[in-house]
């Protein structure tokens, strides 16, 4: 019997019929549909129970309260603002919100590293064990103890117990060279000393002000504590039309701060202080100043008035600032009338040291309208009553070190001038005087990228034998290090966070490890304690604690003893409300209770000491606010009358105007981070394509200037200054003043990970910093530049 075609067809037909009546095709189709939705290489996030842990952000000095969301207590999946924290009230900034990209970032350093080849060659930075790393460091330190002064520490953190431990270590070891990364705070603390007699930082009661005039401060772009400023801004804009807080931005560039202000006063470059003095002149000459304050609590008003009358009449100020004099007069009247009104100082994000006179000019304006130490005005950042550690035990060698001059020459002034003259330090190291720097420690700082006018610093590094980095990330300075001791990140370590800059009430934050350290990192505090112990002598005696936690607890005892303030455990507390009398009841009863609650909520704050009383406000020779600074004279600064009065000194930008016809001004924004970190991928993603395109960053230039130079949008140009040249593309915008080129800072990293490396250029490489004659503080708001198409 043969299976013919017909029969075969029937068999097939039966098969098809049967198959259609079975689940096979339908199940297959359905399962195929599911199969086609599965992509096995797609990550499947860990599932499980979620918990939220409160801690404090340390990515910038702002110290915002944050909540970290954890899955199964081990995967951190979100960071958001802690609504109970008084500073940020649940808000957060882009850096803080992308914090997990640092924790899990590919540029984290996993083990200690030792440079085995040429310094700067990342491939020869080889992993070593912690024991070996600490042994290398201890041996070197033992060896140079006789010349202890050769140890230099640069800290990017100005406050907090870890920084204090570094400073303490240097002192006990015998080196006077504890340096800070330069910042506006350097000028502010000096200015406060000269005018009020105390080296404190100003604290602004912005939440209660009716009018704010900002002299170049990027008040919503990173000045002060970003999340606090943004919250305050939202609140200013919340009021009804009739009750609006008036914001005036005095700045050369059409920044976001300028656009978001009610009024943008586009002053000529670098003349913000002159404008402030112009306002002061109008206020005084029209008799609009606060007579009660001026008569009772100020010194040198007449000298100040005469100076203003002579040099800062509206006509003269118009000539300097190019702002119409009507505008000066009108704004002065408004400022005197709006009570309380406050003027902000500190250029940009406050990273530039700036001029002491610029600070004094703005502060005098605040004094004139009676906004000093008053609600809605400016006071000083209150101190947190931490218990002091026992005195440093000075042995013979550290006593020797006490007598040595600092490498930045700051001690050439009569003590106690707490200046931080970083640029002198760089200059002196390069010149090898007065002695050699042997070892450099870098903590929470990335000067090889972040320092304005960075080239001399890089040169100085080559003169230093050993560079030790405590960074957790492969930043530019760490790339140049000989030894790397990576610390845990802020989400993995215990640390205190001091009152953030510009705040008017006291805050003490406690960050704690919210998850196990991802790598075997040792806390810098513990490293110092271990090192000290292995060095023996006075150094060991100065570090009597078993570990950092013990040392920290010892200081926090002070808070518990004081018994004031409260742990921020409920949302909606607005500590600025109610002014002086707003003393919130404390909510802890013992140290243990406080410590536990701090761990749980992350923050203690105290509003009781917000404003000093008049008799404790000024520690000047006159006991008053000094328009004319007797304090300067007392310290030993010599000069003529002008030296002691707020005035405007025109800083000529570096470079020959004939060769470099334009002005280059750096600017900072919140979406490009400055400081020890580089941008997270999430942040970089948000840059517009006229800010970053491919690997090119853009400089802002006015359409008219571009036309003069024959440049079109997006053209690639070379920017050349005395220091060198960089390449970028041009973005034509009405925000730029003609003849000025604006360049963003914070880009151009050669370290970190592939998400940021090589993107844009580092403006700091071609900026020229200039030092103020009287103080030695540096400014770099402008450098002469020429640009041409490439």
């Amino acid at each position, binding site marked *: 019997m043969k299976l013919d075609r017909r029969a075969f067809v029937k068999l097939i037909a*039966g098969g098809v019929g049967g198959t259609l*009546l079975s689940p096979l095709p339908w199940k297959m189709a359905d*399962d195929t549909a599911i199969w086609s939705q599965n992509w096995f290489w797609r990550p499947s996030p860990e599932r499980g129970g979620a918990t939220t842990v409160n801690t404090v952000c340390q990515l910038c000095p702002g110290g915002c309260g944050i909540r970290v969301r954890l899955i199964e207590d081990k995967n951190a999946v979100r960071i958001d603002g802690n609504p109970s924290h008084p500073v940020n009230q649940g808000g957060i900034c882009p850096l803080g919100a992308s914090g997990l990209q640092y924790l899990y970032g590919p540029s984290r350093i996993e083990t200690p590293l030792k440079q085995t080849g040429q310094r700067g060659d990342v491939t020869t930075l080889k992993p070593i064990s912690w024991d070996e790393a600490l042994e290398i460091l201890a041996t070197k330190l033992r060896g140079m103890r006789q010349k202890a002064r050769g140890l230099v520490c640069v800290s990017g953190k100005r406050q907090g117990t870890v920084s204090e431990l570094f400073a303490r270590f240097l002192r006990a070891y015998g080196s006077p060279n504890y340096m800070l990364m330069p910042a506006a705070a350097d000028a502010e603390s000096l200015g406060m000393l000269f005018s009020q007699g105390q080296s404190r930082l100003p604290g602004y009661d912005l939440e209660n002000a009716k009018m704010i005039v900002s002299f170049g401060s990027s008040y919503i772009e990173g000045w002060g504590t970003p999340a606090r400023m943004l919250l305050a801004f939202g609140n200013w804009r919340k009021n009804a039309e009739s009750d609006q807080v008036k914001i005036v931005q005095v700045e050369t560039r059409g920044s976001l701060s300028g656009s978001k202000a009610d009024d943008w006063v586009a002053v000529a470059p670098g003349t913000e202080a002159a404008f402030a003095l112009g306002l002061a002149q109008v206020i005084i000459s029209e008799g609009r100043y606060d007579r009660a304050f001026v008569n009772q609590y100020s010194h040198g008003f007449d000298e100040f008035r005469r100076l203003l009358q002579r040099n800062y009449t509206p006509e003269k100020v118009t000539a300097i600032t190019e702002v119409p004099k009507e505008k000066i007069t009108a704004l002065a009247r408004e400022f005197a009338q709006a009570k309380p009104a406050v003027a902000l100082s500190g250029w940009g994000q406050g990273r530039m040291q700036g001029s002491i006179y610029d600070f004094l000019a703005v502060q005098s304006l605040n004094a004139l309208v009676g906004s000093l130490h008053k609600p809605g005005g400016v006071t000083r950042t209150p101190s947190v009553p931490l218990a002091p550690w026992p005195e440093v035990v000075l042995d013979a060698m550290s006593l020797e070190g006490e007598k040595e001059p600092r490498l930045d020459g700051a001690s050439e002034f009569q003590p106690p001038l707490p200046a931080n003259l970083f640029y002198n330090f760089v200059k002196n190291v390069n010149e090898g005087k007065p002695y050699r720097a042997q070892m450099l420690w870098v903590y929470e700082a990335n000067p090889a990228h972040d320092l304005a006018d960075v080239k001399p610093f890089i040169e100085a590094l080559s003169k230093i034998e050993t560079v030790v980095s405590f960074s957790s990330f492969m930043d530019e300075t760490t790339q140049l290090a000989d030894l790397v001791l990576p610390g845990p990140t802020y989400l993995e370590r215990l640390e205190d966070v001091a009152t953030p800059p510009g705040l008017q009430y006291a805050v003490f934050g406690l960050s704690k490890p919210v998850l196990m350290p991802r790598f075997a990192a040792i806390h810098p505090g513990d490293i110092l304690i271990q090192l000290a112990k292995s060095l023996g002598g006075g150094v060991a005696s100065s570090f009597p604690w078993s570990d950092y936690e013990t040392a920290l607890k010892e200081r926090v005892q002070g808070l518990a003893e004081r018994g004031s303030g409260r742990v921020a455990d409920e949302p909606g507390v607005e500590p600025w409300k109610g002014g002086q009398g707003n003393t919130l009841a404390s909510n802890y009863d013992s140290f243990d209770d406080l410590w536990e609650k701090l761990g749980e909520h992350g923050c203690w704050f105290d509003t009781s000491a917000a404003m000093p009383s008049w008799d404790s406000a000024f520690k000047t020779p006159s006991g008053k606010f000094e328009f004319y600074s007797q304090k300067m004279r007392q310290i030993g600064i010599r000069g003529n009358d002008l030296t002691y009065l707020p005035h405007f000194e025109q800083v000529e930008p570096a470079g020959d105007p004939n060769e470099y016809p334009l002005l280059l001004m750096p600017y900072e924004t919140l979406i490009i981070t400055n400081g020890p970190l580089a941008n997270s991928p999430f942040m970089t993603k948000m840059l517009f394509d006229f800010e970053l395109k491919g690997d090119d960053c853009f400089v802002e230039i006015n359409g008219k200037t571009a036309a003069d130079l024959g440049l079109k949008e997006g053209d690639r140009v070379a920017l050349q200054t005395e220091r060198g040249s960089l390449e970028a593309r041009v973005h034509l915008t009405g925000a730029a003043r003609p003849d000025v080129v604006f360049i963003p800072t914070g880009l151009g990293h050669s370290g970190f990970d592939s998400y940021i490396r090589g993107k844009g250029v580092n403006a700091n490489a071609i900026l020229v910093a200039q030092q103020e004659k009287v103080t030695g503080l540096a400014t770099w708001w402008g450098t002469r530049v020429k640009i041409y198409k490439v």
Partner: protein
Amino acid sequence: MTGENKQQNSGLLGWALFVVGFAGALFVGWIVFPQLLYSTKYQPINYNHAIHQEEAGMSCEDCHFFREDGTYAGKPKLAACAECHSEPQGETEDEAKLVSEYVEPEKEIPWISYSRQPDNVFFSHAAHVKMAEMDCTDCHRDVEGQTKAPPVKINRLTGYPNEVMKMYVCEDCHAQENVSNACDVCHK
């Protein structure tokens, strides 16, 4: 054989073949195919529900509970097991394995879930158990008195166990109960 017969025969044979094909396909489709479609996996440890209920006197909620935020914890963590099983509770091999391989080295037991939904599905136990007051056994196998953890049948094509509920089941029930069938009620 005459030509006519031949024709008849081949006609019959043709129909027979049709039936063979039909029946064969039905057999393959209904019997063979489901066998082929699933692979079998066994739990790392044979969990005995009955003994925990009857002898240890535990209730379902001791292990299968809602977390404070309303999410459902599913299976217990090792820590819960370790409370009693810090050392073997009996003579069985599984008991020894539990202690030596998981409890002592503090390694979570890699249970295979019978009915865990894929990543893109959000299933609210609270909505079904607390709000709709459904019984666990409306969807899950009844484990009461079960002494053996049954093997897990895993669909070779989809990678999901056969007890994982399919979307049409959700949809049908939602439609029947007049509950929203919008995509974002369940998908994420």
